[in-house]
């Protein structure tokens, strides 16, 4: 593998074609790219980490957010740094491949220069290369692997289960996996994964007696060092997603039980304790300050590509907290030096997976081709051409979400629309065809029904306030880690200095204030209550796209924000 000279020249040619003046540093990095993935081994215990790949088997574009606001103790700290603030905090030069990977800066141009990211065949090659220099290392998957693409939805996660097994995943936890239904998850864990992948979750218990549903942790020897991996599933799965899909299981953060698992693992001789977490980074940071005895938290859920770990002090010493991005864009590598039963030093690298720099793994490529074959015709249907960049990430809106809102309002004849603040979904560059596959990347869930609901102005405000608090509650344990619900047609101001119920003001629709007592027709999708029967969102948006043929650059409906002066979470 490693980037061949031919590919390197292709990159430079592409850079020249895009009119990008690589600065001397950028040129040097590109020139050294044959060594880009040469990561000298360190220490004696290595853990590789992927998370939130959202079933993206092929290389994709993924634009990082330009709005990721942190307040209070999270203000201007990772992961709440975007754009140039992130570059500055982590010493990344603008215009470099790393700047492209970690920020949204000059996204379309940088994407044309450096190409797509991720892809399981590329990831497989990279994992093999890193593992070759790190015998005994483990590969951890933080979850959200079986959802996010058409093929994952249509095969009930089977394509990803097979791909993750082939990739060599050793340990996994979950979140969106559970939206395939509790029975399906159990079926995979008890059969496909049996003897191959440990699916762990210390925070899932039965509703009736609080019995464990999955193993809480495993202890595996790495080069003679006993290493415990504890699993933490997304604590708010039955709240953020439909509870009826896992009715017999209770989740939650379960800090006491976490401490108990750490103590138990230590008592059994674990020299290293690592938490494979789907808490989201803000929750992980709080947990690291309160639970002692965890050496490192390998985190996901909030899709934060954080170049270096945050070190959190606690009563047991310190805990490294990492977050490894999303969509197969990154591979986290944590090397620990363990001496006399203690971690004495570490190195961490979050490697961006540049698809053009890595030769695809033949076996993985063959598997991907095989699982896609029956669906290729459907996936490749061109629905429309986009003139602007389409992306989802951002606290309040993204252009693809705006497109979904526009489609919902027009097709449903609604006054306004809501679209969930999901953080998955790939990006498209200006001039690209929007295929059915792209549309499914934004919408492939097991509860895709659309609704048209009469809501009072008062209800609309209550919903917006409720979701905002999930994002900005001062206590990370009371946050859910998604983004704000995207709102079509209704404008509002959002005062982030205020508390629950008081953040939203000046709600307006078509120049008129929203009347609390008046009813409005609001379109939406992804209901968490059982029994919805509306047309799936992908059909609604597909019909809109086929009709429009050309999608002009979207104008984002964004709230006016108050209380964010000097916030480095705004690019």
């Amino acid at each position, binding site marked *: 593998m490693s980037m061949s000279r031919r590919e390197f020249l292709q990159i430079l040619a592409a850079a020249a074609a895009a009119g990008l003046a690589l600065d001397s540093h950028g040129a040097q990095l590109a020139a050294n790219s044959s060594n880009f993935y040469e990561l000298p081994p360190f220490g004696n215990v290595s853990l590789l980490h992927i998370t939130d790949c959202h079933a993206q088997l092929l290389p994709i574009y993924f634009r990082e957010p330009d709005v990721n606001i942190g307040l209070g103790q999270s203000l201007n700290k990772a992961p709440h740094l975007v754009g140039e603030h992130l570059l500055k905090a982590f010493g990344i030069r603008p215009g470099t491949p790393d700047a492209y990977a970690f920020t949204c800066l000059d996204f379309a141009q940088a994407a044309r220069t450096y190409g797509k990211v991720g892809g399981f065949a590329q990831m497989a090659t990279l994992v093999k290369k890193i593992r070759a220099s790190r015998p005994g290392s483990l590969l951890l998957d933080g979850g959200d692997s079986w959802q996010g693409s058409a093929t994952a939805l249509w095969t009930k996660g089977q394509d990803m289960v097979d791909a993750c097994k082939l990739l060599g995943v050793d340990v996994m936890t979950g*979140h969106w996996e559970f939206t395939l239904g509790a029975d399906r998850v159990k079926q995979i864990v008890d059969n496909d994964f049996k003897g191959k992948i440990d699916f762990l979750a210390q925070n899932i218990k039965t509703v009736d007696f609080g019995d464990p549903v999955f193993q809480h942790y495993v202890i595996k020897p790495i080069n003679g060092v006993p290493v415990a991996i504890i699993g933490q599933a997304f604590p*708010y799965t039955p709240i*953020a997603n439909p509870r009826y899909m896992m009715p017999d299981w209770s989740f939650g953060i379960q800090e006491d039980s976490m401490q108990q698992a750490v103590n138990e693992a230590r008592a059994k001789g674990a020299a290293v304790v690592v938490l494979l977490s789907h808490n989201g980074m803000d929750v992980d940071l709080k947990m690291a300050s309160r639970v002692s005895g965890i050496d490192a938290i390998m985190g996901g859920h909030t899709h934060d590509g954080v170049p270096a770990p945050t070190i959190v002090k606690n009563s047991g010493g310190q805990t490294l907290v990492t977050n490894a991005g999303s969509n197969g864009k990154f591979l986290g590598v944590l090397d620990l030096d363990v001496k006399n039963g203690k971690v004495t030093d570490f190195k961490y690298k979050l490697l961006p997976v540049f698809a053009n720099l890595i030769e695809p793994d033949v076996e993985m490529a063959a598997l991907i081709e095989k699982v896609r074959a029956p669906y290729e015709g459907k996936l490749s249907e061109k629905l429309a051409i986009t003139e602007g960049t389409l992306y989802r990430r951002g606290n309040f809106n993204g252009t693809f979400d705006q497109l979904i809102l526009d489609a919902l309002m027009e097709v449903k004849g609604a006054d306004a629309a809501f679209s*969930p*603040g999901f953080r998955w979904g790939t990006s498209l560059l200006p001039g690209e065809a929007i295929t059915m596959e792209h549309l499914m990347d934004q919408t492939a869930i097991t509860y895709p029904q659309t609704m048209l609901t009469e809501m009072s102005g008062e209800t609309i405000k*209550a919903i917006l306030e409720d979701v905002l608090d999930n994002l900005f509650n001062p206590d990370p344990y009371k946050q859910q880690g998604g983004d704000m619900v995207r709102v079509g047609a209704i404008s509002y101001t959002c005062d982030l200095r205020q508390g629950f119920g008081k953040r939203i003001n000046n709600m307006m629709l078509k120049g008129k204030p929203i009347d609390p007592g008046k009813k409005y027709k609001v379109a939406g999708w992804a209901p*968490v209550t059982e029994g919805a029967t509306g047309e799936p969102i992908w059909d609604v948006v597909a019909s809109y796209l086929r009709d429009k043929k050309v999608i002009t650059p979207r104008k984002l409906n964004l709230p006016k924000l108050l209380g964010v002066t000097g916030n480095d979470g705004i690019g």
Partner: protein
Amino acid sequence: MNPVRRTLLKSIVTVGMLASAISVSLVKPAAALVASWNKNAFSAKTIADAMKEAGYSGAAESSDILLKVPDIAEDGAIVPLEVTSNIPGTTSIAIFAEKNPNPLVADIQFSNGAQPYISMHIKMAETSFVRVAVKAGDKIYSQSKEVKVTLGGCGG
């Protein structure tokens, strides 16, 4: 997981033996308390009134009361709650949900040295503090924690 225990317990419920199982426990069942039903306390509209009527005013915060509730309720209709009082001589524990229309949820007496531990589900109307108050001798102690009740959806 212990499927045998689950099946066994389910069958006990089915044959109607649960009532007798309760009656032998040290916590007095609701029926036995009818005589001492404190109507004023249970129908009070504010937590201050409810605490006063139930005889728990003037409580001092105590970390010897362990209150386990979720940070965010998975279902406001059935919020799991666990209380352990490590205060010697605990004779009763009361549960209040601050913003419920009637904040007093339960007032449980412990007799004959019963271990002051409660595990139950409570119903919560909206995000609010859950407060537990403990009576030990002539002293009153309390502890509280906020439980968020949310509409759900929109995650991740």
